[in-house]
């Protein structure tokens, strides 16, 4: 697996969610994405920033809300973050585990 050098490890939960979202940085996000086989593009970054902003605002995130963000529809969201898009993107964005069922 390709990993970047000099990216300090940050404390995560057992499932891989960042414990303190304030510690998040772009290098860490890049390296975490690599672990999920994702090479971050502008589209990914736009979504990650949007997720972080919504989390800051205290919004409970759902796939439907992401689809209504205008950044990606449901199909694109699943393609950008394969294997469970909301969970994978939340991990990379350094925000807590989503708790929605929808």
């Amino acid at each position, binding site marked *: 697996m390709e990993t970047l050098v000099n990216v300090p490890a940050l404390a995560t939960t057992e499932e891989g969610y960042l414990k303190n979202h304030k510690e998040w940085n772009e290098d860490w996000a890049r390296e975490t994405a690599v672990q999920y086989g994702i090479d971050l593009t502008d589209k990914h970054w736009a979504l990650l920033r949007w997720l972080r902003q919504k989390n800051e605002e205290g919004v409970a995130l*759902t796939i439907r809300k992401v*689809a209504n963000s205008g950044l990606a*529809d*449901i199909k694109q969201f*699943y393609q950008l973050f394969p294997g*469970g898009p909301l969970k994978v993107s939340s991990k990379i964005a350094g925000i807590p585990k989503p708790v929605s069922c*929808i």
Partner: protein
Amino acid sequence: MNDTLEMPRTAPAPKLVAKESKPVKKVLIICSKGKLEDVYAALIMANGALMEGIEAKMFFTFFGLEAITRKHADRLHTATVGNPAFMPDMPTVVAGLPGFEAFASYMMKKEMDKLEIPRVTEFIEMIDAAGGEIYACKLAADMFHLGMDDFLPEVKDIITVGDMYALAEGEGTQIIFI
């Protein structure tokens, strides 16, 4: 022998065996009912699986076909008669009055709206966009005289029970019947 009190004997601690993780890889959800709550249970589980990265297939049969029929998908009702968990103090004669079921279903949908639960047709669009597959049962479709034109565009095909089992093929598949 020593004089000290014997240590109480306890059962040896069970050895820790590394548990082999066998996650669910695919779900096949069969929806045979047309009541609002049953259809939503099926949709929520299918969508929830996809959200976890689990493959999901849906097979609608019998009254479950209502959920994928263009005319009825967004007009499903919940039963107010013969449903003891719903308003337990409501006498059946009242619950059976004309319009009561429609009113109760309307109220339930309003509550669901508050939780941002999508309408049935939107939910099916979401499942399709997420890579889930939706099928109709051939026997039930024949029985209710329904064809592909009657179904929502996301319905992939009308298939037999044998084809349905083929959808469940593979290790780590679970079949859920509603």
